[in-house]
């Protein structure tokens, strides 16, 4: 229609950019959608920071005590994050000691050994494992893993709530994540490298371990770091199976609340705003956010920095 009017009036067709208010409006809205993610991050930092600041302003709290104290007893005015952090680290380490070797082994099997048929069975199984809600894993830890550990090691050794069963089940939860990230990294290694290794007489294992894995090491390291970050932030398993009170202990068979578990338990109860309890949760949250964000950034750096590029 526009063309007809123009030719009729015998005007010169303008080749310049025409204003299109509708297009600009749409582009504006789309930009807003993208920018919303920045707002989310700012919101997280602002809200966590604000409440955490209120917490640290309180005369009963000092930053040094927060970072070095070995007791977390809000009723007694003791706010040392070490018991919570310690439990978080122990459960995460247990989880990683399961998920890392197994995840790597499964990834190597999938990318180097598996037939199409085996892949078509394994991949969906891993997807289902990854899709099961964490609260279900929590139930599994409490009603299966804990009784199992107790029957093997004895009821005096293993508490009903303990870090080991939570950590082990968390390992199963993280397994699919590590596997899929590692497999992506391994599959990205060019075929030519493998062919060259075979050509020199390497066995399948030697090719996988000495050629493919080193070539994919940046992706594997990133998977490892993301796995740790996921383990640290994992909440429901530890809230259900690991314990209901802060406890500074290195014994994995005892209960000890993690940072996330503590946040869920306290905020799930009756909590009044602007109390020191409420603010302390945000301080823990900020701590958690900084750790996981740091780990995620490290993993992205690893990928960018150490990626082997071919061609």
């Amino acid at each position: 229609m526009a063309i007809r009017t123009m030719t009729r009036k015998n005007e010169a067709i303008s080749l310049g950019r025409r204003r299109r208010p509708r297009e600009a409006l749409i582009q504006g809205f789309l930009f807003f959608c993208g920018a919303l993610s920045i707002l989310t991050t700012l919101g997280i930092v602002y809200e966590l920071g604000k409440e955490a600041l209120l917490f640290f302003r309180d005369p009963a709290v000092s930053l040094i005590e927060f970072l070095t104290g070995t007791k977390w007893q809000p009723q007694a005015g003791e706010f040392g994050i070490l018991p919570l952090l310690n439990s978080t680290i122990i459960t995460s380490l247990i989880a990683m000691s399961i998920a890392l070797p197994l995840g790597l082994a499964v990834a190597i099997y999938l990318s180097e050994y598996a037939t199409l048929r085996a892949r078509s069975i394994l991949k969906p199984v891993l997807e289902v494992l990854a899709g099961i809600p964490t609260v279900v894993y929590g139930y599994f830890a409490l009603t299966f893993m804990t009784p199992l550990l107790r029957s093997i090691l004895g009821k005096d050794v293993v508490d009903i709530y303990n870090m080991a069963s939570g950590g082990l089940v968390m390992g199963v939860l993280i397994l699919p994540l590590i596997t899929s990230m590692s497999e992506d990294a391994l599959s990205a290694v060019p075929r030519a490298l493998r062919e060259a290794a075979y050509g020199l007489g390497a066995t399948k294992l030697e090719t996988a371990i000495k050629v493919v894995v080193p070539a994919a090491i940046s992706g594997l390291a990133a998977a490892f770091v993301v796995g740790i970050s996921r383990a640290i932030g994992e909440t429901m398993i530890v809230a259900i199976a690991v314990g209901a009170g802060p406890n500074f202990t290195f014994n994995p068979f005892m209960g000890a609340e993690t940072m996330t578990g503590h946040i869920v338990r306290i905020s799930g109860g009756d909590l009044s705003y602007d109390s020191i309890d409420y603010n302390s949760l945000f301080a823990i949250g900020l701590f958690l956010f900084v750790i996981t964000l740091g780990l995620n950034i490290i993993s992205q750096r690893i990928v960018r920095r150490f990626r082997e590029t071919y061609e």
Partner: protein
Amino acid sequence: MSDQSPGSRLTPYFAPNLQQRHRTSAFWRVLFKLSTLVGMVMLALLLYTVVNDSFGLVAINNKVDPGTLAVNGVPIEELDQETLLTIIQNNVSKGKFRQLEREGLLAERTWDEVYQVVIDDVVQPEDVVGTWTLVESLTRRSAIIAEVKQEHPQASVQFKAWLNLNFIASPQSSDALIAGVRTAMLGSLLTIAITILVALPLGIGAAIYLEEYAAENRLNRLIQTNINNLAGVPSIIYGMLGLAIFVRALESLTSGAIFGFTDPTTANGRTILSAGLTLALLVLPVLIINAQEAIRAVSNSLREASYGLGATRWQTIWHHVLPNAIPGILTGAILSVSRAIGETAPLVVIGAATYITFDPSGPFSKFTTLPIQIYQWTSRAQGEYHNIAAAAILVLLAMLLSLNAAAILLRNRYSRK
């Protein structure tokens, strides 16, 4: 491979450890294969545990032993409706009987309903004294019955499927025997509906912006990195964000007060709307990343053909890019939404300790969801709560499974074209 190949004769130093190397290779091959089994075994064990706990024998102390209600030796399960009515008439007070009649004439009710009245108002199950798993119930049934006879002579033992139609249809209750998941299921569905309504347009919009509009500059790179980082933030942090922003700062909006919706129970902003918005923020990063991949997969020649015909950028996107990318976008969206259905931690933070027995009526009602319910029941020490938690897990898994099946069907249907 044998060492007698010509190659080994040519290179004698190569041969001696060749067999050893092949043996190592074979050994690790088996090890790799075995480790893949762990995932499968764990999945099987998990499902086994849940199903095992969802069915089984249960010993219940009744106010009236159902055995004494038997007429001429016929147990109540096999009596006809007339006899059941007489039993009700004989055993409940006049006032109670009139109340029952007001709720619906007993004579016009079905057998199942009348039987339920007998159980609820005559037998009156009081408390559970023991529960057993499915496997225990099948393998040592008689031992269990003997054990209960000895320790709780009053109690009756019966086989109970904790997952049954009643369980799905009844509201939440503090009594494990009659508790159900209707309240929680409706809460979950309403929350997810809000999440989808908010997250889907925003997520697709952001993906379109990043893939089709964003120039290569600092701001856009920042947005992209930021989205990748947000995808790795623990879900509980989103819960705290939601608590601070949607529950507290935007209280008048999320409690519905500015719409003239004054329900004193939701005046604190802990509503379905807050929960849905929080989950929307939570799924957005993953949704955006998935949608970006789907949009990137659309062939560039389509865009160029459209531009060549004089279409504007938005016309190109709306008429050519989106229709081709939509199956991929939807598949990714369904997967991220199914992640949201199972989310527990942020909703516990938002909803706090909610115990509600009535159905949520809209975005401004208080809420509970299936995962919260599972968490609360699992946290109880008594065995029967673990049974209903297991039954609720089956309901949740069924919901997730049907969503995922929908995603797969969608993917297959469109990729065949």
